[in-house]
């Protein structure tokens, strides 16, 4: 790899631009392209043509995790999500919850959840995690999430809490299939109790949604 290629890949990452490196495996000749099927699938691929082999290595911007509710579980979850490579944003209009001392090294916003979510525009590489337990905060964010392509949407709360959440969204005109996208109660059922355990069940569920073949 040429140093100029390395610098270009890192510059694209800093600008959150998706780029694909294409390298000829015999000569080592390389180039960078903005569009390739490997970027769409986020899988490196080897292509053979005329006896030459070209390796396509995608570098997509990091997956994102948008966490609504700067609560205790969110503190554990941000640490794990960063380790898994997610770019994390915590959304909570309550500034007492969102203090920098509680959430070091992650993006934070105290905008109203619907405004923050609209601005952050979840896409198919985004997971949305609702943790505030307060419909005033969670629901406006959830509404934006359900209209987006987010690959994962999860909401904290008991079965009963989730049943009333479903009723609220039915009343707002969302159909059952759309509401079914919400993972509620959130997380894999591993009997989690502590905030760190609940965060573990959430990152496991998100990983399953991301990686399991469908």
């Amino acid at each position, binding site marked *: 790899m040429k*140093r100029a290629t*390395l610098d270009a*890949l*890192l510059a694209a990452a800093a600008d959150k631009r998706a780029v694909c490196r294409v*390298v000829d495996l015999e000569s080592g000749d390389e180039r960078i392209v903005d569009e390739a099927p490997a970027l769409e699938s986020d899988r490196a691929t080897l292509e053979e043509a005329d006896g030459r082999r070209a390796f396509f*290595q995608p570098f997509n911007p990091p997956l994102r995790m948008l966490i609504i509710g700067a609560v205790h579980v969110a503190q554990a979850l941000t640490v794990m999500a960063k380790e898994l490579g997610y770019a994390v944003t915590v959304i909570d209009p309550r500034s007492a919850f969102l203090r920098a001392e509680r959430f070091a090294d992650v993006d934070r916003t105290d905008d109203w959840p619907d405004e923050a979510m609209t601005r952050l525009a979840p896409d198919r590489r985004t997971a949305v995690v609702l943790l505030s337990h307060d419909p005033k905060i969670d629901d406006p964010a959830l509404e934006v999430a359900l209209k987006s392509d987010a690959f994962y949407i999860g909401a904290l709360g008991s079965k009963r809490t989730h049943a009333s959440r479903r009723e609220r969204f039915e009343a707002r005109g969302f159909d059952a299939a759309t509401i079914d996208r919400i993972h509620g109660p959130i997380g894999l059922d591993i009997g989690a109790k502590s905030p760190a355990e609940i965060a573990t069940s959430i990152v496991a569920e998100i990983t399953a949604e991301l990686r399991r073949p469908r």
Partner: protein
Amino acid sequence: MSTELLETARAWHDAGHAVAIATVVRTWGSSPRPAGSMLIVRDDLLFVGSVSGGCVEGRVVDEAAQVMEAKAPRTLTFGVSDEEAWDVGLACGGTIEVFVEALT
């Protein structure tokens, strides 16, 4: 792919080290790391990242040291290990192809 490992490559290169990059370019059957996985090797044989579950990294680091000298890239293939022959290979039963190149 994450660019974290490439940042390490840049930092080592900036510090005046020779650096090689090994990348999984193809896998067959059960393999521990997918295509695109990288191992970054420094001239004092310090390495970060992985191309397998730890089965073949030692061999790849040796090859990387040679590639740093020769500059020409090479492609290595690793299959199932032959334990009796003390051969380097993968315990999982898969096969991987690894592209090793110098950072120039």
